[in-house]
């Protein structure tokens, strides 16, 4: 695949390195000559010194034939404009933008950016995962389908312990996908599976029924 990366800072550098090692053709656009030089010295002559929001520069590097366009500069607004340029002027089908302000996720979606990656949210999710008291952890959001995959931990004092799944009033929009008991192997839940303390349950749900699902699994 031909991939264009805008922003040759640390994120851009390591991303490019990974993409190259997977065998992709990559061009990096970087504003600062110093960063360009580092990339060209270490990863081969693939970095162009210029502005990734400038139609002129994008034309020069063959954005029209790019399969994917990734903007990872440190400024949300620059990433937005670079991706919109690629999308609307050069018809690149997949555009990915890095965002700093988690609020911008919804805005970028609305303005036509295909995928957004928020480092702030990623770090938050990892913190959620590691903190045991968190009753429900978001593992993955399938945004265009309005679904999410979540993990619910069953605390030792939960009122649902010892009950089979069929006795729980699960919301209609949720499905249990996997039960990971504390000491045994993960298994697929059936209606007769008994909830035990320390279980981790992976479920698919809509964001709206998230609270209902948590209450059904852990008790009131």
């Amino acid at each position: 695949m031909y991939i264009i990366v805008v922003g040759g800072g640390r994120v851009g550098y390591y991303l490019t390195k990974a993409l190259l090692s997977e065998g992709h053709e990559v061009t990096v656009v970087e504003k600062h000559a110093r960063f360009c030089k580092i990339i060209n010295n270490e990863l081969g002559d693939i970095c162009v010194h210029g502005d990734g929001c400038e139609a002129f520069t994008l034309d020069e590097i063959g954005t029209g034939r790019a399969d994917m366009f990734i903007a990872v500069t440190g400024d949300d607004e620059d990433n937005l404009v670079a991706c919109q340029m690629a999308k609307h002027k050069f018809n690149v089908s997949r555009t990915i933008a890095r965002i700093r302000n988690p609020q911008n996720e919804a805005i970028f979606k609305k303005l036509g950016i295909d995928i957004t990656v928020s480092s702030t949210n990623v770090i938050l999710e990892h913190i959620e995962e590691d903190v045991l008291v968190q009753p429900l952890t978001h593992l993955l959001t399938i945004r265009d389908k309005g679904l999410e995959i979540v993990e619910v931990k069953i605390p030792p004092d939960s009122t649902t312990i010892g009950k089979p799944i069929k006795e729980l009033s699960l919301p209609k929009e949720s499905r249990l996908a996997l039960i990971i008991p504390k000491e045994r192997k993960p298994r697929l839940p059936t209606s007769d599976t008994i909830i035990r303390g320390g279980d981790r349950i992976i479920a698919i749900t809509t964001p709206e029924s998230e609270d209902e699902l948590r209450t059904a699994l852990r008790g009131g």
Partner: protein
Amino acid sequence: MKVVIMGCSRVGGRLAGLLDAEGHSVTIVDIDAYSFRWLPPDFKGTALAGNGLDQEMLKRAGIEEADAFVVATQGDNRNIMAAQVAKHIFHVPKVVCRIRDPLREELYSTLGLETLSPTKILAQMLKEKLES
């Protein structure tokens, strides 16, 4: 008319003064409070220091009730993003955006933003002066 202006540059500050003198309700936002020196001394509107790309800040500036939003900061991309937020998220009836780069200005004007490129306009006017 209630107008929110983002970016108290020479242009933004002057525009705020002109609208204010005509009796419009003007709120101007800039990330740097020092830039409010470009406002005329008799400015009666509101000047807010803060980041205009932040939705909370825009709400505080009254964007939800605004009839018009003008964005004239130093950065084209900042202007473009703010203008799109005002238009597509807050549905401000009239949004005008300054974009220096003529190529970028053309693209966003075809995408439906009301844009002005001072570069293009000034070059054209200078040329006309030379020819007259």
